[in-house]
């Protein structure tokens, strides 16, 4: 029993959660006040858009592609939301749908012409940034009230007899919902198998009579959709926009997918892991703030923490035969 629980396979699956837990303990050690509803709110609310962007990236990675444009796209959504969606909601909605459609078109183009996704999405990152600057040439704009309100939502406390009120922070609820939705869609539905299979062995999927064009378009469409949600969540938090606000999401989202146990090729991804990966990355920032490193080395410490978290993987791999 214990042997199965501690088997490398199980440990590897539990690794993302384990890393997050270790980091949480470290944060708690440095600053006990942070482990509180307010603390979780402050530490994790920016994890919501990152988690959504990570799920978007994961959709693309599932079909063996990489999206280098997701950060710029989230920036585009932020700009549209802070301008058109605020002033003329219908136009805003149309632009957001247009964004998703463009994402699907990119997926179709990549499949039909058999193009390397890295270059196409790199090109798209310039396109999104350009569109964002055209929509909002200088920083500004205003978040639609409902979005700001949603992101500030405080769920009602749950009274627990003999202990007090349990206030579950909104970011935690949001992360759980995102993880469950993505997991069900990709891992539990029957078409989800086809989507992942088209990353694992596209030829086999095609030979079984499925359209690879469709799987690609669906996955890029899903990436566009989750990317859009990421942008909306972000503008709800920042309440005001700037074109390059989410540039960093591109690398963060890739790191999140990998931290969450995903691989670049072969359709091997884990939605729950990806969300946890995103939260781990987010949590590394407060950890570093509480650590009070001299500014010269603060940037390096961010690298070091990524290394440490990922090194856990090596330790577990050493325990048993590798895949």
């Amino acid at each position, binding site marked *: 029993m214990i042997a199965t629980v501690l088997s490398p396979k199980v440990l590897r699956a539990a690794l993302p959660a384990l890393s997050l837990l270790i980091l949480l303990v470290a944060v708690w050690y440095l600053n006990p006040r942070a482990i509180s509803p307010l603390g979780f709110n402050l530490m994790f609310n920016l994890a919501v858009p990152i988690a959504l962007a990570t799920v978007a990236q994961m959709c693309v990675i599932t079909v063996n592609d990489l999206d280098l444009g997701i950060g710029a796209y989230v920036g585009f959504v932020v700009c549209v939301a802070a301008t058109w969606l605020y002033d003329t909601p219908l136009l805003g909605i149309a632009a957001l749908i247009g964004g998703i459609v463009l994402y699907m078109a990119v997926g179709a183009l990549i499949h039909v012409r058999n193009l390397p996704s890295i270059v196409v999405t790199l090109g798209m990152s310039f396109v999104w940034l350009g569109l964002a600057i055209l929509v909002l040439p200088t920083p500004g704009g205003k978040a639609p009230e409902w979005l700001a309100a949603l992101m500030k939502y405080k769920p009602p406390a749950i009274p627990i007899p003999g202990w007090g009120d349990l206030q579950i922070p909104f970011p935690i609820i949001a992360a759980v919902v995102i993880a469950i939705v993505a997991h069900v869609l990709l891992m539990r539905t*029957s*078409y989800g*198998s086809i989507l992942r299979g088209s990353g694992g*062995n596209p030829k086999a999927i095609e*030979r*079984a009579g*499925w359209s690879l064009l469709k799987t690609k378009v669906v996955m890029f469409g899903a990436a566009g959709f989750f990317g859009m949600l990421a942008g909306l969540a972000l503008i709800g938090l920042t309440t005001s926009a700037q074109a390059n606000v989410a540039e960093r999401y591109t690398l963060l989202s890739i790191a999140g997918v990998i931290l969450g146990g995903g691989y670049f090729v*072969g*359709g091997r991804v884990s939605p729950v892991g990806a969300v946890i990966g995103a939260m781990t990355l987010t949590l590394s920032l407060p950890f570093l703030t509480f650590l009070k490193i001299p500014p010269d080395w603060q940037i390096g410490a961010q690298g070091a923490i990524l290394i440490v978290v990922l090194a856990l993987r090596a330790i577990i791999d050493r325990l048993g035969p590798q895949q």
Partner: protein
Amino acid sequence: MSMGERIVSLDGVDKSFGAVHALAGVDLACDSGECLGLVGHNGAGKSTLMHVLAGTLRPDRGRILVSGDDLTRSYDVAVAQSRGIRCVFQELSLCPNLTVAENARVFHASLRGLGWRRRAGKLILDKLDEIFPGHSIAPGDVVGDLGIARRQMVEIARAFSVTDTPVKLVILDEPTSSLDAVLAGQLLDFVKRFVAAGGAVILISHLLGEILDTASRVIVMRDGKVVAGRPAAEFTRDSLVAAMGSVAKGADESSARTAKGREGAPVARARPAGQRNGAELVAHRGEVVGLAGLGGQGQTEMLRALFAAARRRSREASVREPVALVAGDRQTDGIFPLWSIEKNITIASLRRMVRGLLVDPRQEAVMAETWREKINIRTPDVGNNILSLSGGNQQKALFARALGSVAGIVLMDDPMRGVDIGTKQEVYGMIRAEAEAGRTFIWYTTEMDELKNCDHVYVFRNGRIVADLARDELTEEKVLHTSFTEEAA
């Protein structure tokens, strides 16, 4: 299903790949209730023909009729499936990242809605139980974690599983190449039952015994044409070989080899990790050492341990000469898919071909050309991409890679997978000659015929050596006996 009903017929099918005329006016018909055996040398066009039949390749010319309807124009995978035609391809078609059950779902569009996972698992598990009793595969296993034999089993079971459309015809392209004798026997028994119940099977194999034993009718292909087609009973092993265009060599010629005395220090020795007693594998210079037993009993691991020991210190094994390996899983461990045949052959011998600091392209060309002729790799040009070769010819290229290298020890992981009978005989001869000249071979095979070429055979079971047979002790009974019952060796 009624017997003798025409399921599918191909009329004058033509297919070319560039300069290669893979199919030249092939006619083929298959009726329900028959098992059609399809044989032919490597590159004869068997797989290409099956791709046409399965709808994955469109022929350049010719007609396709299914149950009497001319479907030439609209024929594709979906149409073939809706008409009950299934295919297990030579190169496996499972998604390694999905579970066994999910792979079943990929095949059956109707497996959806609530509870699809459970239904898919039951579907594939029932079929596996039916074909390969005692298989120990669970629906939740991820396919990538399974060995090549198990993957093949899953793929076969999947092809026979039924949801909404009945299965009329199943094409099996070298289904036994990765299975050991027991599993192959189970499969062929099942094929017989399936056919007896009114189904149809097209069976491709280079093991002529299997074909003669299982098929009701046999079709022989040569250079893209059907050259013979008669009831199986009218063929003998020799007439079949003759029809394929290979010169049959007497099987006894290989037994002419006499046992060598074992003396001096061995060039390789190894002990399986789980070995309890003192038994170990020992190979002397110039020996052909066989690893026998059922599939997946640790033979591959032994070869990998020996291979690793040649590079770094290892507790399990020690090796005193450079080694080369002919991998068992051609697709993932063998070929370099972007390279030409030539580069695929020379990769292990580049060190010899360096002039100054650079690899000499002329020497490369010479080596590739030499081996093309030596083991008859069918291609107009060794500069062509490796994937343009048929499966068996790809395997020959891998052979050339290992035999052409300077390695003193050649490890072979069931290397004859998909190699036609004529070539096999030639390769056996070559191995014997090389051994004579001082090269050592360690050869994992599940075929008795091949073990007869060995000087010394170790039988594996459960990851351990259970028998150690010198050449004069080697009999089929002994190998089978020790493969199944554990006893101290």
